[in-house]
């Protein structure tokens, strides 16, 4: 078999495949590199022909211009607060509901579960306008809780948690705990939670990054620069007459670098979170 395979894929075709994949990697990486080049170049660099393709020394200058235009750190912090709270709430709601669907018998269980899955097909834009007025009536316009509340809905989370809990939490363990007189919530807290922590990492990444990158809702609810999340703040950078590309990409660069570092550290977890989130 291996002999056969060796005969079939000649060195030439192997080299071709390496070349092809390297081109693809370059295509993926180049915009990142180029963002760095622009973030470190003076605005005049943009008009030079041929274009600058090596980093300059304006890293700090450009970022100072960003700070003049938007409250960068406040916006990063706002995004961080929104995403952290959303992630914790979604993990809690999803694991509790997933636990119920996986281990309890109650009437209408399948109907409720199907209903949760069906909510996934409602496009988020359908309710946008009433949601806006609802948030505004509740006095939550221009507040972070107003942003968060929509993100608390996560049917996929319940689906994944049910799957994981029914696979990895043995029924015997729950039975035994019941015989010992544990309440259901105590079982959730001291038996289920420790077992599903790895699944929390997966779902946490999905929820956090989805909330971090979401734009339409945040753009709709937040008008006060003090309350901008990073996505809304970044979008303001290009919203001027005299666009300064070095400044714009400096903002993007500093907003993206933390994510890139976290991604490169935990890349296996990130990639498996995608496959688990969609393949199941």
């Amino acid at each position: 078999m291996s002999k056969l395979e060796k005969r079939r894929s000649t060195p030439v075709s192997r080299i071709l495949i390496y070349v092809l994949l390297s081109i693809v990697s370059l295509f993926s990486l180049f915009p990142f590199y180029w963002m760095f080049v622009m973030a470190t170049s003076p605005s005049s660099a943009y008009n030079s022909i041929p274009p600058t393709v090596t980093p300059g020394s304006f890293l700090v200058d450009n970022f100072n211009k960003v700070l003049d235009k938007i409250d960068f750190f406040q916006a990063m912090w706002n995004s961080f607060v929104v995403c952290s709270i959303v992630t914790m709430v979604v993990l809690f709601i999803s694991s509790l509901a997933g636990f119920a669907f996986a281990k309890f018998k109650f009437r209408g269980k399948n109907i409720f579960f199907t209903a949760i899955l069906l909510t996934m097909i409602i496009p988020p834009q359908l309710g946008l306008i009433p949601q806006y007025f609802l948030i505004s009536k509740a006095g939550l316009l221009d507040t972070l809780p107003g942003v968060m509340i929509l993100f608390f809905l996560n049917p996929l989370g319940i689906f994944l948690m049910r799957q994981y809990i029914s696979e990895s939490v043995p029924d015997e363990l729950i039975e035994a705990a019941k015989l010992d007189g544990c309440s259901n919530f105590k079982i959730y807290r001291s038996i289920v939670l420790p077992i599903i922590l790895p699944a929390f990492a997966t779902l946490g990444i999905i929820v956090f990054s989805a909330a971090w990158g979401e734009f339409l809702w945040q753009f709709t609810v937040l008008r006060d620069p003090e309350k901008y999340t990073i996505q809304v703040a970044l979008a303001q950078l290009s919203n001027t007459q005299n666009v300064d590309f070095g400044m714009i990409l400096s903002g993007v660069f500093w907003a993206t670098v933390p994510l890139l570092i976290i991604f490169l550290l935990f890349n296996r977890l990130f990639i498996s979170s995608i496959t688990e989130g969609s393949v199941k």
Partner: protein
Amino acid sequence: MHAESNKEKVSKKGGVSVYQEPRKEKVKKKRYRSEEKKDMISGYLYIAPFFIIFSLVGLYPALFSIYLGFQKWNGLSPMEFVGLSNFKIVLTDPLFWKSVYNTIVMGIMGTAPQLVFGIIFAFLLNLAFLKFKHFFRVTIFMPYITSMVAVALIFSVLFSDHESSLVNYLLSLAGVDPVNWSSSEWGTKIAISIMVFWRWVGYNTIIYLAGIQSIPNDLYEAATIDGANKFQQLIYITMPMLKPFIILTVFTSTVGALQLFSEPTVFLGNSAFTRDEAMTIVMYLYRDAFKLQSFGTASATAIILLVLITVFALINTSLIAGNGRKKRGENA
């Protein structure tokens, strides 16, 4: 499982006298029934948070949107029932049809190549001899973790209208005149499609890769022995076995493409809602609602969008599913 735990209990209390047996049974039965009741209450209690939040910020707004579609409302004065006239206004607005056209054109240009290239990349990344597999996988996936706003801004600089923008410079080397990427009919669409492709192709590759890895290896071994080359293996083994994954990605890409909003809005910046070259259906909706305060027509647009998404998702997924069925029929 109940039997097992019972056994455990019996063995634990092995020394219990015979007279106590019947009484114990009764107690256990009673406890069982109350246990069941408790479980039922816990069950409802634990799934309640989702349904409470959903009815408040999901279901109610969706239904209210449908109601609003039949009202004339500027957000301040009382609503006025206008029947189907909102739909009539939207459906006779050339700008709405332009936005539908733009959305579909960018949807096809941005997502169809993704699916084709995604399968090819996944197939290559799974080749047995390949070294640096993980490196390639990480680099191809990397664009996905950048936010749509960040991507749109990076590409707005790469594809700016200046003669000196990187893309225009590269084109000039090939003898092509500079393109107005932010204001021409095809320039905007091509630039936006490329950025959508760039951000999502890795995502689809990873999903296809997971699918490919679930295909049993002996199928390829058998094909290799039968003399099938790599390309034939891709067409006759990988593709059919990947079908569920292809259906999934076609579905999500179709739905996602029809909801395109962030990329064109941020890419075009100031002119996003004043020019029509890249206006999408959701941008049209947003403009009606939050720029023109015409919430009735915006809601009608939202309802039309829901219908479009449902129709297109059904057509596209059944096209893919049906295609496979035909192939199987031919083989038989």
